[in-house]
């Protein structure tokens, strides 16, 4: 039984990794071929770095990920603080349910619904919205906020209320106690929310696909347009680089805080479900 279970695990993981390993391997293939490895070279990587569009897309992706995750972290942290202090259970449930909508809905629905909003807004003479950085920033911030709230809220809930009271007794203003007592306590949640938002934003394709414009392309959108028709070998190099980046990022996160951030993606969704149940 033990041997069988090991064989099973090895097979599933081998299948899971085979395509990615092949892709990374063949990105070093000098001849642009997928079935014959001729010789090891960095040719396609050099080609990639000569591609100005790819570099712009990378820059756009990073800008957007930083901006949207920071904005979402500010709004989400404040919201978590507010939700924690809400007294009415009904309002709490209502706020949490609305917050969870972007996580429960399929990405394509979130994407097209925002597209409709922006199309409508653009048709209004007094709202000159143009598809591009602004619409992308709004969309990414919107899907990041719930993840920030779900990282930060448990920390607020864990916090001893007496700490705030003590701070107030000792002469802190409420704002002072927020910045000097509460914020430091929830900081780990804020950091993991920020990192989660950053990676989700970098990774997002579906929602971006509907709210972007050709003059503001992110890396996933660039990969999409490049892989739409013919196989392009510099794309293999780009994909391989992205895989390496994620590998490094995950190892870092794992060392930093024994993989709570990485697991979050699934855990959060699970959590929302159980919470919805408890409240319902």
């Amino acid at each position, binding site marked *: *039984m033990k041997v069988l*279970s090991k064989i099973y*695990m090895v097979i*599933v*993981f081998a299948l*899971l990794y085979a395509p*990615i390993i092949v892709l990374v391997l*063949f990105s070093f293939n000098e001849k642009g071929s*997928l*079935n014959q490895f001729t010789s090891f070279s960095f040719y396609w990587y050099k080609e990639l770095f000569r591609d100005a569009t790819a570099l712009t897309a990378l820059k756009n992706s990073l800008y957007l990920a930083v901006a949207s995750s920071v904005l979402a972290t500010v*709004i989400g942290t404040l*919201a978590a*603080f*507010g939700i924690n*202090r809400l007294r009415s259970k009904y309002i709490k449930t209502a706020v949490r349910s*609305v917050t969870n*909508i972007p996580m*429960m*809905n*399929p*990405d*394509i*629905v*979130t994407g*097209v*619904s*925002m597209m*409709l*909003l922006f*199309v409508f807004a653009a048709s209004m003479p007094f709202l000159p919205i143009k598809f591009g950085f602004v619409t992308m920033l709004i969309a990414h911030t*919107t899907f990041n*906020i719930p993840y920030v709230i779900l990282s930060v809220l448990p920390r607020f809930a864990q916090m001893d209320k007496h700490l705030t009271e003590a701070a107030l007794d000792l002469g802190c203003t409420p*704002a002072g106690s*927020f910045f000097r007592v509460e914020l430091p306590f929830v900081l780990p949640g804020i950091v993991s929310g920020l990192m989660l938002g950053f*990676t989700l934003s970098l990774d997002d*394709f*579906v929602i971006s*696909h509907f709210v972007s414009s050709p003059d503001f392309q992110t890396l*996933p959108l660039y*990969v*999409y347009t490049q*892989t739409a028709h013919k*196989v392009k070998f510099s794309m293999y190099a780009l*994909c391989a680089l*992205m*895989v390496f980046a*994620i*590998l490094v*990022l*995950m190892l870092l996160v794992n060392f930093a805080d*024994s*993989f709570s951030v990485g*697991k979050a*993606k*699934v*855990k959060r969704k*699970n959590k929302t479900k159980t919470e*919805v*149940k408890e409240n*319902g």
Partner: protein
Amino acid sequence: MNKRSFLERFALVPHAVWSILFIVAPLIFIIYFAFTDRNGNFTFANVTSLSNYANIFGLSVAFALIATVICLLVGYPLAFFISRLKPSKQKIMILLLMLPMWISLLIRTYSLMTLLDNGGLLNSLLNAVGFRNVQIVGTAGAVILGMVYDFLPYMVLPIYTSMSKLDIRYFEAAEDLGCNGWKTLRRVVLPLTVPGIISGITMVFVPSISTFYISQKLGGGSFDLIGDTIERQFMNKSYNVGAAISLVMMILILISVAVMNKFADDDKGGQLIV
């Protein structure tokens, strides 16, 4: 503390405004566009025209269901085996499972396509051992395989999470009371991991039924799923029909999630939710 501070009062305001503008309003626009024509007049034409898309809906549901069932059949034993490893090994396996989740779906699908393609590695390996080329890309099997490959980790992780919470003494008790391995699995492990199974099913089914990249790449253009249809409608600026299809898909998903959650709760004493 009787008086609420300024911060307490207004901390929720930015989030509330943001949610109303960018979560609630867009959903209202889906409904609005679904029931209006190009000029903004009220109409049922979009919704009634959906009967033309019945096979697309059927095909998408079928593909997503098959992919979900395969994920469950493959993923459940995997989660079980991982949960029985030593804790240090469990951690490594879960990390290995999560890594593909963080790699862009585009890259994973694209790499699978290049591996299976006509001139791809798999076919040249087959040729090398004397078989003929197998046309994989463009078949229904390829699309389903793509869904399974892309979303399998989303099935395994929640199941693993609920398994790792199981008390090891349950197994011992079951054994003491005369259960063999299979019976323990069926009567102890399976019922206790239903919540994990349910959330795994949701997390595989929802992205599978709404995907468009997988069917575009691995279906070779011969399969039109709901996701593809929505995407095409919106890219061609035919917002009204697109909105109607999205609305129906959203309702479909909400209902199936609600039904599933009801099943999950029946096991624990039957409270109704959603």
